[in-house]
Protein backbone atom coordinates (compact mmCIF):
# COMPACT_ATOMS: atom_id res chain seq x y z
CA UNK A 1 0.00 0.00 0.00
CA UNK A 2 2.76 2.44 0.99
CA UNK A 3 4.75 1.50 -2.10
CA UNK A 4 1.66 2.06 -4.26
CA UNK A 5 1.06 5.49 -2.77
CA UNK A 6 4.73 6.40 -3.19
CA UNK A 7 4.46 5.36 -6.84
CA UNK A 8 1.37 7.50 -7.28
CA UNK A 9 3.01 10.55 -5.69
CA UNK A 10 6.10 10.00 -7.82
CA UNK A 11 3.98 9.94 -10.99
CA UNK A 12 2.12 13.08 -9.92
CA UNK A 13 5.26 15.00 -9.02
CA UNK A 14 6.91 14.10 -12.37
CA UNK A 15 3.75 15.21 -14.20
CA UNK A 16 3.61 18.50 -12.31
CA UNK A 17 7.20 19.21 -13.37
CA UNK A 18 6.03 18.65 -16.95
CA UNK A 19 3.22 21.20 -16.58
CA UNK A 20 4.24 22.93 -19.82
CA UNK A 21 3.41 19.73 -21.71
CA UNK A 22 -0.15 19.31 -20.47
CA UNK A 23 -0.94 23.00 -20.58
CA UNK A 24 0.26 23.21 -24.21
CA UNK A 25 -1.60 20.06 -25.24
CA UNK A 26 -4.83 21.19 -23.54
CA UNK A 27 -4.68 24.54 -25.33
CA UNK A 28 -4.09 22.76 -28.65
CA UNK A 29 -7.05 20.45 -27.95
CA UNK A 30 -9.36 23.39 -27.35
CA UNK A 31 -7.99 25.27 -30.37
CA UNK A 32 -8.38 22.23 -32.65
CA UNK A 33 -12.02 21.78 -31.70
CA UNK A 34 -12.88 25.29 -32.89
CA UNK A 35 -10.11 26.13 -35.37
CA UNK A 36 -12.29 26.17 -38.48
CA UNK A 37 -15.13 28.15 -36.91
CA UNK A 38 -15.67 31.91 -37.02
CA UNK A 39 -16.42 32.33 -33.33
CA UNK A 40 -13.76 29.87 -32.22
CA UNK A 41 -13.95 28.91 -28.52
CA UNK A 42 -16.66 31.56 -28.04
CA UNK A 43 -19.01 28.83 -29.28
CA UNK A 44 -18.75 27.37 -25.77
CA UNK A 45 -20.17 30.61 -24.41
CA UNK A 46 -22.93 30.57 -27.03
CA UNK A 47 -23.79 26.95 -26.14
CA UNK A 48 -23.98 27.86 -22.48
CA UNK A 49 -26.30 30.82 -23.12
CA UNK A 50 -28.45 28.65 -25.37
CA UNK A 51 -28.92 26.00 -22.67
CA UNK A 52 -29.53 28.44 -19.83
CA UNK A 53 -31.89 30.44 -22.03
CA UNK A 54 -33.82 27.34 -23.06
CA UNK A 55 -34.30 26.15 -19.49
CA UNK A 56 -34.98 29.59 -18.06
CA UNK A 57 -37.36 30.95 -20.67
CA UNK A 58 -38.80 28.04 -22.63
CA UNK A 59 -38.60 24.72 -20.84
CA UNK A 60 -39.72 25.94 -17.39
CA UNK A 61 -42.23 28.54 -18.45
CA UNK A 62 -43.79 29.05 -15.01
CA UNK A 63 -40.58 30.61 -13.73
CA UNK A 64 -39.72 32.54 -16.86
CA UNK A 65 -38.56 36.03 -16.18
CA UNK A 66 -37.79 35.30 -12.53
CA UNK A 67 -34.20 36.57 -12.07
CA UNK A 68 -33.52 34.36 -9.06
CA UNK A 69 -34.57 31.29 -11.03
CA UNK A 70 -32.40 32.34 -13.97
CA UNK A 71 -29.46 32.68 -11.58
CA UNK A 72 -30.36 29.27 -10.11
CA UNK A 73 -30.28 27.63 -13.54
CA UNK A 74 -27.20 29.58 -14.68
CA UNK A 75 -25.08 28.34 -11.75
CA UNK A 76 -26.64 24.88 -11.88
CA UNK A 77 -25.77 24.54 -15.58
CA UNK A 78 -22.24 25.85 -15.07
CA UNK A 79 -21.43 23.20 -12.47
CA UNK A 80 -23.40 20.39 -14.07
CA UNK A 81 -21.86 20.87 -17.54
CA UNK A 82 -18.42 20.92 -16.01
CA UNK A 83 -18.99 17.71 -14.05
CA UNK A 84 -20.70 15.93 -16.95
CA UNK A 85 -18.00 16.83 -19.41
CA UNK A 86 -15.20 15.88 -17.03
CA UNK A 87 -16.70 12.51 -16.15
CA UNK A 88 -17.84 11.44 -19.62
CA UNK A 89 -14.53 12.41 -21.24
CA UNK A 90 -12.54 10.69 -18.50
CA UNK A 91 -13.93 7.23 -19.17
CA UNK A 92 -12.20 6.99 -22.56
CA UNK A 93 -9.10 8.98 -21.56
CA UNK A 94 -6.52 6.18 -21.63
CA UNK A 95 -7.90 4.82 -24.92
CA UNK A 96 -7.55 8.26 -26.52
CA UNK A 97 -4.00 8.59 -25.21
CA UNK A 98 -3.00 5.05 -26.22
CA UNK A 99 -0.34 6.11 -28.73
CA UNK A 100 1.35 8.34 -26.13
CA UNK A 101 1.10 5.74 -23.36
CA UNK A 102 2.55 3.03 -25.61
CA UNK A 103 5.21 5.24 -27.18
CA UNK A 104 6.50 7.62 -24.52
CA UNK A 105 7.50 7.56 -20.88
CA UNK A 106 5.31 10.52 -19.89
CA UNK A 107 3.75 9.97 -16.45
CA UNK A 108 0.11 8.91 -16.54
CA UNK A 109 -0.88 11.97 -14.54
CA UNK A 110 0.14 14.16 -17.50
CA UNK A 111 -2.91 12.86 -19.40
CA UNK A 112 -5.09 13.39 -16.34
CA UNK A 113 -3.97 17.01 -16.10
CA UNK A 114 -4.32 17.51 -19.86
CA UNK A 115 -8.00 16.63 -19.62
CA UNK A 116 -8.44 18.57 -16.35
CA UNK A 117 -6.94 21.64 -17.99
CA UNK A 118 -9.18 21.24 -21.05
CA UNK A 119 -12.30 21.02 -18.88
CA UNK A 120 -11.23 24.05 -16.84
CA UNK A 121 -10.61 26.14 -19.97
CA UNK A 122 -14.03 25.19 -21.36
CA UNK A 123 -15.70 25.94 -18.03
CA UNK A 124 -13.96 29.33 -18.04
CA UNK A 125 -16.15 30.39 -20.99
CA UNK A 126 -19.30 29.19 -19.23
CA UNK A 127 -18.16 30.94 -16.05
CA UNK A 128 -17.83 34.23 -17.95
CA UNK A 129 -21.38 33.75 -19.25
CA UNK A 130 -22.65 32.86 -15.79
CA UNK A 131 -21.07 35.95 -14.22
CA UNK A 132 -22.66 38.10 -16.92
CA UNK A 133 -26.11 36.57 -16.29
CA UNK A 134 -25.74 37.10 -12.53
CA UNK A 135 -24.68 40.72 -12.94
CA UNK A 136 -27.53 41.40 -15.37
CA UNK A 137 -29.89 39.69 -12.91
CA UNK A 138 -28.94 42.18 -10.22
CA UNK A 139 -26.58 39.97 -8.23
CA UNK A 140 -23.84 42.47 -7.44
CA UNK A 141 -20.41 41.13 -6.52
CA UNK A 142 -20.11 40.74 -2.75
CA UNK A 143 -18.49 38.47 -0.17
CA UNK A 144 -20.96 35.67 -0.97
CA UNK A 145 -19.17 35.30 -4.26
CA UNK A 146 -16.01 34.36 -2.37
CA UNK A 147 -17.86 31.51 -0.66
CA UNK A 148 -19.17 30.44 -4.03
CA UNK A 149 -15.61 30.53 -5.36
CA UNK A 150 -14.64 28.21 -2.50
CA UNK A 151 -17.26 25.75 -3.73
CA UNK A 152 -15.85 26.01 -7.26
CA UNK A 153 -12.33 25.56 -5.95
CA UNK A 154 -13.30 22.32 -4.21
CA UNK A 155 -14.77 21.03 -7.45
CA UNK A 156 -11.62 21.96 -9.36
CA UNK A 157 -9.51 20.21 -6.71
CA UNK A 158 -11.66 17.11 -7.08
CA UNK A 159 -11.37 17.13 -10.89
CA UNK A 160 -8.07 15.22 -11.32
CA UNK A 161 -9.39 12.60 -8.89
CA UNK A 162 -12.65 12.30 -10.85
CA UNK A 163 -10.63 11.96 -14.06
CA UNK A 164 -8.38 9.23 -12.65
CA UNK A 165 -11.18 7.17 -11.12
CA UNK A 166 -13.29 7.21 -14.28
CA UNK A 167 -10.28 6.74 -16.58
CA UNK A 168 -9.30 3.56 -14.72
CA UNK A 169 -12.93 2.43 -14.77
CA UNK A 170 -12.97 2.90 -18.54
CA UNK A 171 -9.70 0.99 -18.97
CA UNK A 172 -10.90 -2.01 -16.96
CA UNK A 173 -14.53 -1.90 -18.05
CA UNK A 174 -14.77 -0.47 -21.59
CA UNK A 175 -18.57 -0.64 -21.67
CA UNK A 176 -18.62 1.94 -18.88
CA UNK A 177 -18.02 4.66 -21.50
CA UNK A 178 -21.60 4.25 -22.69
CA UNK A 179 -23.08 3.40 -19.29
CA UNK A 180 -21.54 6.47 -17.65
CA UNK A 181 -22.51 8.67 -20.61
CA UNK A 182 -26.14 7.59 -20.33
CA UNK A 183 -26.16 7.87 -16.54
CA UNK A 184 -24.86 11.42 -16.71
CA UNK A 185 -27.51 12.34 -19.27
CA UNK A 186 -30.22 10.90 -17.05
CA UNK A 187 -28.48 12.26 -13.95
CA UNK A 188 -29.31 15.81 -14.97
CA UNK A 189 -32.95 15.09 -14.19
CA UNK A 190 -32.09 13.55 -10.80
CA UNK A 191 -29.93 16.51 -9.80
CA UNK A 192 -31.34 19.92 -8.90
CA UNK A 193 -29.78 21.59 -11.92
CA UNK A 194 -32.96 23.23 -13.18
CA UNK A 195 -35.61 22.00 -10.73
CA UNK A 196 -35.96 23.51 -7.29
CA UNK A 197 -36.32 21.32 -4.21
CA UNK A 198 -38.71 22.81 -1.70
CA UNK A 199 -39.40 19.94 0.66
CA UNK A 200 -41.28 17.64 -1.74
CA UNK A 201 -41.55 13.96 -0.80
CA UNK A 202 -40.86 10.99 -3.04
CA UNK A 203 -38.18 10.67 -5.70
CA UNK A 204 -37.21 14.35 -5.64
CA UNK A 205 -36.44 14.14 -1.92
CA UNK A 206 -34.06 11.21 -2.39
CA UNK A 207 -32.61 12.68 -5.57
CA UNK A 208 -31.86 15.85 -3.65
CA UNK A 209 -30.56 14.41 -0.37
CA UNK A 210 -28.64 11.31 -1.50
CA UNK A 211 -27.15 12.64 -4.70
CA UNK A 212 -23.58 13.88 -4.09
CA UNK A 213 -23.83 16.15 -7.12
CA UNK A 214 -26.53 18.11 -5.28
CA UNK A 215 -23.90 19.26 -2.81
CA UNK A 216 -21.40 20.13 -5.53
CA UNK A 217 -24.04 22.39 -7.05
CA UNK A 218 -25.37 23.87 -3.84
CA UNK A 219 -21.90 24.67 -2.53
CA UNK A 220 -21.49 27.07 -5.46
CA UNK A 221 -25.10 28.20 -5.84
CA UNK A 222 -26.49 28.78 -2.33
CA UNK A 223 -24.09 31.59 -1.35
CA UNK A 224 -25.26 33.64 -4.33
CA UNK A 225 -28.91 32.71 -4.78
CA UNK A 226 -29.80 32.21 -1.07
CA UNK A 227 -27.08 34.34 0.53
CA UNK A 228 -26.12 31.60 3.00
CA UNK A 229 -22.87 29.85 3.88
CA UNK A 230 -23.53 26.31 2.61
CA UNK A 231 -21.70 24.48 5.36
CA UNK A 232 -23.31 21.10 4.71
CA UNK A 233 -22.80 21.30 0.95
CA UNK A 234 -19.16 22.33 1.30
CA UNK A 235 -18.53 19.63 3.92
CA UNK A 236 -20.03 16.89 1.73
CA UNK A 237 -18.12 18.19 -1.31
CA UNK A 238 -14.93 18.17 0.76
CA UNK A 239 -15.51 14.60 1.97
CA UNK A 240 -16.32 13.39 -1.55
CA UNK A 241 -13.17 15.16 -2.78
CA UNK A 242 -11.03 13.43 -0.14
CA UNK A 243 -12.63 10.04 -0.82
CA UNK A 244 -12.11 10.41 -4.56
CA UNK A 245 -8.48 11.41 -4.10
CA UNK A 246 -7.82 8.44 -1.80
CA UNK A 247 -9.32 6.08 -4.37
CA UNK A 248 -7.57 7.80 -7.27
CA UNK A 249 -4.15 7.63 -5.58
CA UNK A 250 -4.64 3.97 -4.84
CA UNK A 251 -5.64 3.22 -8.43
CA UNK A 252 -2.74 5.26 -9.82
CA UNK A 253 -0.25 3.58 -7.50
CA UNK A 254 -1.47 0.05 -8.12
CA UNK A 255 -2.32 0.12 -11.80
CA UNK A 256 -0.37 2.87 -13.55
CA UNK A 257 2.19 0.44 -14.97
CA UNK A 258 -0.53 -2.00 -16.06
CA UNK A 259 -2.53 0.47 -18.11
CA UNK A 260 -0.16 0.02 -21.06
CA UNK A 261 -1.22 -3.65 -21.25
CA UNK A 262 -4.93 -2.85 -21.08
CA UNK A 263 -5.44 -0.26 -23.82
Amino acid sequence: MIAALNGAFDDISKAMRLHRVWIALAHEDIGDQHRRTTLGPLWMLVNYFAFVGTFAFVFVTKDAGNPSYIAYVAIGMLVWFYLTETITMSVSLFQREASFIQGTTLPLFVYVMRLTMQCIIRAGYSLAGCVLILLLGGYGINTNWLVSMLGLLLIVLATPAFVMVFAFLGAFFPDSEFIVGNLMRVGMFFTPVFWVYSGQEGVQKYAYRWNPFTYFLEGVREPITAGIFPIQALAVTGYVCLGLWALALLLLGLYRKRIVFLI
Partner: protein
Amino acid sequence: MTSITLNNVSLVYRLFEKLTLSAPGRRRSALGGNIAKSGTKQVVQALDDVSFELKAGDRLGLVGPNGAGKTTLLKVLYGIYQPSGGTISIAGKVDALFNIHIGFRPEATGRRNIVLRGLISGWTAAEIEEKMEEIIDFSELGDFIDLPFKAYSQGMAARLAFAAATALEPEILLMDEWIGAGDASFQEKAKRRMDELAEKAGIIVLASHDDALIQRVCTKKMTLRAGRVESLT
Protein backbone atom coordinates in the same frame (compact mmCIF):
# COMPACT_ATOMS: atom_id res chain seq x y z
CA MET B 1 30.08 5.96 -18.17
CA THR B 2 27.21 4.81 -20.39
CA SER B 3 26.13 1.24 -19.79
CA ILE B 4 23.17 -1.13 -19.81
CA THR B 5 23.07 -4.27 -17.68
CA LEU B 6 20.17 -6.70 -17.69
CA ASN B 7 20.11 -9.67 -15.35
CA ASN B 8 17.49 -12.39 -15.84
CA VAL B 9 14.89 -9.89 -16.94
CA SER B 10 11.44 -11.26 -17.55
CA LEU B 11 8.15 -9.67 -18.46
CA VAL B 12 5.09 -11.65 -17.58
CA TYR B 13 1.69 -10.12 -17.53
CA ARG B 14 -1.71 -11.49 -16.89
CA LEU B 15 -3.87 -11.78 -19.96
CA PHE B 16 -6.43 -9.43 -18.64
CA GLU B 17 -10.05 -10.24 -19.24
CA LYS B 18 -11.76 -6.91 -19.43
CA LEU B 19 -15.07 -6.55 -17.67
CA THR B 20 -17.22 -6.20 -20.69
CA LEU B 21 -20.53 -7.35 -22.01
CA SER B 22 -18.93 -8.56 -25.27
CA ALA B 23 -18.33 -12.20 -26.20
CA PRO B 24 -15.62 -14.00 -24.14
CA GLY B 25 -13.27 -14.31 -27.13
CA ARG B 26 -13.10 -10.52 -27.57
CA ARG B 27 -12.23 -9.62 -23.99
CA ARG B 28 -8.49 -9.95 -24.06
CA SER B 29 -5.72 -7.66 -25.19
CA ALA B 30 -2.26 -9.09 -25.68
CA LEU B 31 1.10 -7.81 -26.94
CA GLY B 32 2.23 -11.14 -28.31
CA GLY B 33 4.61 -13.70 -26.83
CA ASN B 34 3.91 -17.05 -25.18
CA ILE B 35 0.50 -17.55 -23.66
CA ALA B 36 0.56 -19.95 -20.72
CA LYS B 37 -1.66 -20.99 -17.82
CA SER B 38 -0.83 -19.91 -14.29
CA GLY B 39 -3.43 -21.48 -12.06
CA THR B 40 -6.76 -20.41 -13.44
CA LYS B 41 -5.31 -17.33 -15.08
CA GLN B 42 -3.74 -16.99 -18.51
CA VAL B 43 -0.45 -15.13 -18.63
CA VAL B 44 1.79 -13.90 -21.42
CA GLN B 45 5.52 -14.51 -21.11
CA ALA B 46 6.73 -11.62 -23.28
CA LEU B 47 10.38 -11.82 -22.11
CA ASP B 48 12.03 -14.70 -20.31
CA ASP B 49 15.39 -14.64 -18.54
CA VAL B 50 17.02 -12.00 -20.73
CA SER B 51 20.54 -11.04 -19.66
CA PHE B 52 23.19 -8.96 -21.38
CA GLU B 53 25.60 -6.18 -20.74
CA LEU B 54 26.44 -3.25 -23.00
CA LYS B 55 29.04 -0.59 -22.48
CA ALA B 56 29.95 2.63 -24.31
CA GLY B 57 30.64 1.95 -27.98
CA ASP B 58 28.43 -1.15 -28.20
CA ARG B 59 25.81 -1.34 -30.94
CA LEU B 60 23.39 -4.19 -30.31
CA GLY B 61 21.18 -5.49 -33.10
CA LEU B 62 18.01 -7.31 -32.06
CA VAL B 63 16.77 -9.87 -34.56
CA GLY B 64 14.11 -12.53 -34.55
CA PRO B 65 10.72 -13.32 -36.02
CA ASN B 66 7.62 -11.21 -35.36
CA GLY B 67 6.46 -11.65 -31.77
CA ALA B 68 9.96 -12.68 -30.59
CA GLY B 69 10.10 -9.82 -28.09
CA LYS B 70 12.31 -7.25 -29.88
CA THR B 71 9.98 -4.27 -29.50
CA THR B 72 8.99 -5.42 -26.02
CA LEU B 73 12.63 -5.49 -24.96
CA LEU B 74 13.15 -1.98 -26.38
CA LYS B 75 10.12 -0.74 -24.44
CA VAL B 76 11.41 -2.36 -21.26
CA LEU B 77 14.74 -0.58 -21.77
CA TYR B 78 12.94 2.71 -22.39
CA GLY B 79 10.77 2.30 -19.28
CA ILE B 80 7.36 1.93 -20.91
CA TYR B 81 7.02 -1.66 -19.65
CA GLN B 82 8.06 -2.48 -16.13
CA PRO B 83 9.80 -5.88 -15.98
CA SER B 84 8.17 -8.41 -13.71
CA GLY B 85 11.45 -10.09 -12.78
CA GLY B 86 15.21 -9.54 -12.87
CA THR B 87 17.14 -6.32 -12.65
CA ILE B 88 17.93 -3.52 -15.08
CA SER B 89 20.69 -1.04 -14.55
CA ILE B 90 21.05 1.82 -17.02
CA ALA B 91 23.62 4.61 -16.83
CA GLY B 92 23.06 7.38 -19.37
CA LYS B 93 20.26 9.38 -20.97
CA VAL B 94 17.99 7.12 -23.00
CA ASP B 95 16.23 8.33 -26.14
CA ALA B 96 14.05 6.27 -28.41
CA LEU B 97 12.99 6.46 -32.04
CA PHE B 98 9.87 4.29 -32.07
CA ASN B 99 7.17 6.35 -33.76
CA ILE B 100 8.54 9.56 -35.25
CA HIS B 101 5.03 10.89 -35.98
CA ILE B 102 3.85 10.72 -32.38
CA GLY B 103 2.30 13.92 -31.09
CA PHE B 104 2.10 15.70 -34.45
CA ARG B 105 -1.13 17.66 -34.77
CA PRO B 106 -2.64 18.27 -38.21
CA GLU B 107 -4.14 21.66 -37.35
CA ALA B 108 -0.96 23.12 -35.80
CA THR B 109 1.78 24.73 -37.89
CA GLY B 110 5.07 22.98 -38.47
CA ARG B 111 6.76 25.40 -36.07
CA ARG B 112 4.18 24.75 -33.34
CA ASN B 113 4.56 21.01 -33.90
CA ILE B 114 8.29 21.31 -33.28
CA VAL B 115 7.54 23.06 -29.98
CA LEU B 116 5.03 20.37 -28.98
CA ARG B 117 7.37 17.59 -30.00
CA GLY B 118 10.13 19.20 -27.96
CA LEU B 119 7.91 19.49 -24.89
CA ILE B 120 6.85 15.85 -25.18
CA SER B 121 10.50 14.85 -25.49
CA GLY B 122 11.30 16.75 -22.30
CA TRP B 123 13.27 19.61 -23.90
CA THR B 124 13.44 22.92 -22.08
CA ALA B 125 12.24 26.15 -23.69
CA ALA B 126 15.87 27.10 -24.37
CA GLU B 127 16.57 23.72 -26.00
CA ILE B 128 13.50 24.07 -28.22
CA GLU B 129 14.61 27.57 -29.21
CA GLU B 130 18.12 26.34 -29.91
CA LYS B 131 17.01 23.40 -32.07
CA MET B 132 14.17 25.15 -33.89
CA GLU B 133 16.14 26.68 -36.80
CA GLU B 134 18.27 23.59 -37.20
CA ILE B 135 15.15 21.40 -37.51
CA ILE B 136 13.55 23.82 -39.98
CA ASP B 137 16.73 23.94 -42.07
CA PHE B 138 17.13 20.17 -42.04
CA SER B 139 13.50 19.55 -43.04
CA GLU B 140 13.89 21.97 -46.01
CA LEU B 141 10.35 23.26 -45.46
CA GLY B 142 11.17 26.95 -45.82
CA ASP B 143 8.07 29.16 -45.56
CA PHE B 144 5.85 26.08 -45.27
CA ILE B 145 6.95 25.79 -41.64
CA ASP B 146 4.30 28.36 -40.68
CA LEU B 147 1.48 26.54 -42.47
CA PRO B 148 -0.67 23.88 -40.79
CA PHE B 149 0.85 20.40 -40.75
CA LYS B 150 -2.20 19.05 -42.60
CA ALA B 151 -1.27 21.20 -45.62
CA TYR B 152 2.01 19.31 -46.07
CA SER B 153 2.53 16.60 -48.64
CA GLN B 154 3.35 13.16 -47.26
CA GLY B 155 7.03 13.71 -48.01
CA MET B 156 7.12 17.12 -46.31
CA ALA B 157 5.37 15.74 -43.22
CA ALA B 158 7.82 12.85 -43.08
CA ARG B 159 10.80 15.25 -43.42
CA LEU B 160 9.61 17.41 -40.54
CA ALA B 161 8.83 14.40 -38.34
CA PHE B 162 12.26 12.93 -39.10
CA ALA B 163 14.10 16.20 -38.47
CA ALA B 164 12.34 16.77 -35.15
CA ALA B 165 12.66 13.18 -33.97
CA THR B 166 16.37 12.97 -34.74
CA ALA B 167 17.34 16.30 -33.18
CA LEU B 168 18.65 14.37 -30.21
CA GLU B 169 21.89 14.00 -28.41
CA PRO B 170 21.32 10.58 -26.92
CA GLU B 171 23.77 8.68 -24.77
CA ILE B 172 21.72 5.55 -25.33
CA LEU B 173 19.61 5.30 -28.48
CA LEU B 174 16.83 2.74 -28.91
CA MET B 175 15.46 2.19 -32.39
CA ASP B 176 12.66 0.01 -33.68
CA GLU B 177 13.79 -0.29 -37.29
CA TRP B 178 16.05 2.23 -38.99
CA ILE B 179 14.12 5.28 -40.03
CA GLY B 180 14.29 7.24 -43.24
CA ALA B 181 12.09 9.80 -44.96
CA GLY B 182 11.33 11.76 -48.10
CA ASP B 183 12.55 11.54 -51.67
CA ALA B 184 15.84 10.05 -52.88
CA SER B 185 17.99 13.10 -52.07
CA PHE B 186 16.45 13.55 -48.63
CA GLN B 187 16.83 9.85 -47.94
CA GLU B 188 20.56 10.19 -48.51
CA LYS B 189 20.62 13.15 -46.11
CA ALA B 190 18.52 11.19 -43.61
CA LYS B 191 20.92 8.26 -43.86
CA ARG B 192 23.84 10.57 -43.06
CA ARG B 193 21.90 12.03 -40.08
CA MET B 194 21.18 8.53 -38.78
CA ASP B 195 24.83 7.55 -39.19
CA GLU B 196 25.88 10.68 -37.26
CA LEU B 197 23.33 9.94 -34.56
CA ALA B 198 24.59 6.40 -34.28
CA GLU B 199 28.16 7.70 -34.15
CA LYS B 200 27.35 10.17 -31.36
CA ALA B 201 25.34 7.76 -29.20
CA GLY B 202 27.29 5.86 -26.60
CA ILE B 203 25.13 2.74 -26.99
CA ILE B 204 22.64 1.76 -29.67
CA VAL B 205 20.04 -0.96 -29.47
CA LEU B 206 18.41 -1.48 -32.86
CA ALA B 207 15.61 -3.92 -33.61
CA SER B 208 15.35 -4.83 -37.26
CA HIS B 209 14.48 -7.53 -39.75
CA ASP B 210 17.18 -6.20 -42.07
CA ASP B 211 20.27 -8.38 -41.64
CA ALA B 212 22.41 -6.18 -43.90
CA LEU B 213 21.57 -3.14 -41.78
CA ILE B 214 22.40 -4.99 -38.56
CA GLN B 215 25.73 -6.05 -40.11
CA ARG B 216 26.49 -2.48 -41.16
CA VAL B 217 25.50 -0.68 -37.94
CA CYS B 218 25.88 -3.13 -35.08
CA THR B 219 28.82 -4.67 -33.28
CA LYS B 220 26.72 -7.30 -31.48
CA LYS B 221 23.73 -9.31 -32.52
CA MET B 222 21.14 -10.87 -30.26
CA THR B 223 18.57 -13.28 -31.61
CA LEU B 224 15.32 -13.48 -29.69
CA ARG B 225 12.75 -16.23 -30.04
CA ALA B 226 9.52 -16.39 -28.03
CA GLY B 227 10.91 -13.88 -25.55
CA ARG B 228 14.14 -15.79 -24.86
CA VAL B 229 17.67 -15.08 -25.96
CA GLU B 230 18.55 -17.69 -28.56
CA SER B 231 22.01 -16.38 -29.27
CA LEU B 232 24.22 -13.40 -28.53
CA THR B 233 27.25 -12.89 -30.70
